[in-house]
């Protein structure tokens, strides 16, 4: 089943987002509400913060797949600027780094990045990371997270939980 809803590109919309998730949450895979809310909320806030067209709406989609719950949050940001020396597929670079914790971004193709977390056995507190704290939070919960960006259409973050 696919659940889809659009929201204004404002932080204050997080309250409406929470209400919607409370309604549709029980209809998707057995995910505790607060964890579902946390992941979608972080992706939504990220989309608002980096939006270039605040008049456009942000679309949130939830879909049950066989093995996971797919969460998609669109945005109108400029996407990621890939490092000049890392323009080939399967190149990986640290998007954010604090001591031993790294958010790694891998170029899957010219329009897709895949994120992963590299941290020691005793994880570093997320609070110490100044940037990309939201992405790190999602990665601690998600099975997989990818970002799709295109100049000709919309960008979206896809989370598999």
């Amino acid at each position, binding site marked *: 089943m696919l659940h889809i809803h659009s929201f204004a590109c404002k932080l204050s919309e*997080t309250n409406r987002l929470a209400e919607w998730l409370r309604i549709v949450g029980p209809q998707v895979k057995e995910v505790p509400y607060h964890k579902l809310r946390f992941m979608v909320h972080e992706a939504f*806030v990220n989309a608002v913060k980096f939006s270039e067209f605040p008049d456009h709406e942000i679309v949130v989609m939830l879909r049950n797949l066989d093995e996971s719950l797919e969460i998609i949050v669109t945005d109108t940001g400029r996407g990621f600027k890939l490092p000049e020396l890392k323009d080939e597929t399967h190149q990986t670079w640290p998007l954010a780094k604090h001591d031993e914790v790294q958010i790694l971004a891998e170029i899957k193709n010219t329009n897709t990045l895949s994120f992963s977390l590299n941290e020691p056995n005793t994880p570093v507190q*997320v609070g110490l990371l100044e940037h990309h704290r939201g992405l790190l939070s999602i990665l601690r919960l998600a099975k997989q997270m990818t970002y799709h960006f295109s100049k000709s259409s919309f960008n979206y973050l896809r989370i598999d939980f």
Partner: protein
Amino acid sequence: MATHTKLQLFDDYAILSFKELQNLDANVALRVKAEVKGLLDDVNKDLIISLNGIEFIDSTGFGSLISILKLIKNKDKKLALCMVSNEVKELMDLMQLNSIFKVYADVNLAAASFK
């Protein structure tokens, strides 16, 4: 601008609580942080933050709590959290924050931890 916080001063410690606030998130967290910094300017006591009524905290909200913790530590004082909901506790686990915040069931236990 509406205030979200209330600070009560006692002999040995202060208690910070939230007024009519259910979510400590990106929507309000930076305003709350600024408010608290203002309230704590002239206060030199151990601090208890009561999260009674707070249902949800996001990464920005946790970031604000960490800023307050740093502020208190810079004054060579201690900070304790209390009345934390199970859901927020789980999110704190997820964020690996349990090792930097001391969490107690209620204000009395939090106050006792300072002795």
